[in-house]
């Protein structure tokens, strides 16, 4: 069987990630598999609780002295909604920055090889081979490809800034075809 059909090389390139790429990727990782997972649902529960408490307050003509519990419930619920929808993603991004700054390996340039059923990268200190079946998510943003998964739940980032359009298109098409269940295209929230 010819190599190109069996498991040929799709792309080969050098890549290097910057602090902003990694923090953004970590925010996405946190949304998909971390503490921020399902944050909309969790925030909705507290929103409904706040509405319920508000309804009770309305029934009592907003007499806070008679229904202090309802006011406390509203305050806690509002805080939890803010926590899930605003504070958690911010915190995840900061944690990503903290991880990047604490690591001497993440910032090192890597040489990637993308094959039909796996990818690998290599540099002076590290070699990693990962099959797509081990990945839980492959998220494409405007700035990078974020590959999440494996036994160590690792976040592998391929920055688009160092790739030419041809390679980006090839990778995008390849990942979307080979990782149908795991591939998503997300808009980056880079400011």
């Amino acid at each position, binding site marked *: 069987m010819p190599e190109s059909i069996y498991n040929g090389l799709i792309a080969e390139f050098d890549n290097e990630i910057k602090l902003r790429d990694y923090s953004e990727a970590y925010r996405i990782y946190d949304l998909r598999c971390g503490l921020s997972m399902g944050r909309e649902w969790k925030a909705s529960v507290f929103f409904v609780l706040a509405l319920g408490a508000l309804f009770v307050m309305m029934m009592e003509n907003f007499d806070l002295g008679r229904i202090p519990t309802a006011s406390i419930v509203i305050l806690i619920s509002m805080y939890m909604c803010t926590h899930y929808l605003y504070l958690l993603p911010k915190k995840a991004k900061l944690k990503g920055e903290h991880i990047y700054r604490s*690591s001497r*390996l993440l910032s090192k340039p890597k040489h990637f090889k993308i094959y039909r059923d796996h990818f690998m990268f290599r540099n002076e*200190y*590290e*070699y*990693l*081979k*990962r099959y797509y079946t*081990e990945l839980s998510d492959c998220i494409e943003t405007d700035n990078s490809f974020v590959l999440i998964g*494996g036994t160590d739940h690792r976040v592998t980032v391929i920055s688009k800034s160092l790739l030419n359009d041809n390679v980006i298109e090839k990778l995008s098409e390849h990942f979307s075809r080979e990782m149908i269940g795991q591939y998503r295209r997300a808009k980056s929230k880079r400011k």
Partner: protein
Amino acid sequence: MEKPFLEESFLITKQDHINMSIDYRRYITPKENIIILRVLGIIAVCIGAAAFINIKGGVYQSICWIVLIVIGFYTLSYYDVISPSITRKQAAHFYDVYKGSIHSKTVRFFDNRVELTSEERKLRIPKKYLYKIYVSKDTVMIFTDISEFLFIPKRVLSESQLTFIEGYSEK
């Protein structure tokens, strides 16, 4: 060829993975959080119990005090009983999902670097690039940054090897 100071080969079992997950959970939990939750739990249980015994109210009020006592016990036992139990279940499930991809690993400690070799990954970390070596109850964790780490189950290490690893980062 350079001879390592320490060389050990091992396969991660399900129990190793569970122990590592529990140890990591303990490592990342700040001590203040544990103390705060315990104090809050004790306060809730005391208030609930005192109110339940002393305040004569209706059935609705009694239920509220019982709920407060239950919440107190939940908070009190969260880090010692509930959290390890959840972590144990999650780790067992994770191992079952990924057990096909878990291969044996060989770790080598040299004078100026640590090497890890497995089928899918090879690491050669200079000693100055290590973030931290943390020895917990059942696991030795070698951190490369604040969250990523390699781990060695303590069961594969002898007392002298363990002492060597504990002192490695200070040498």
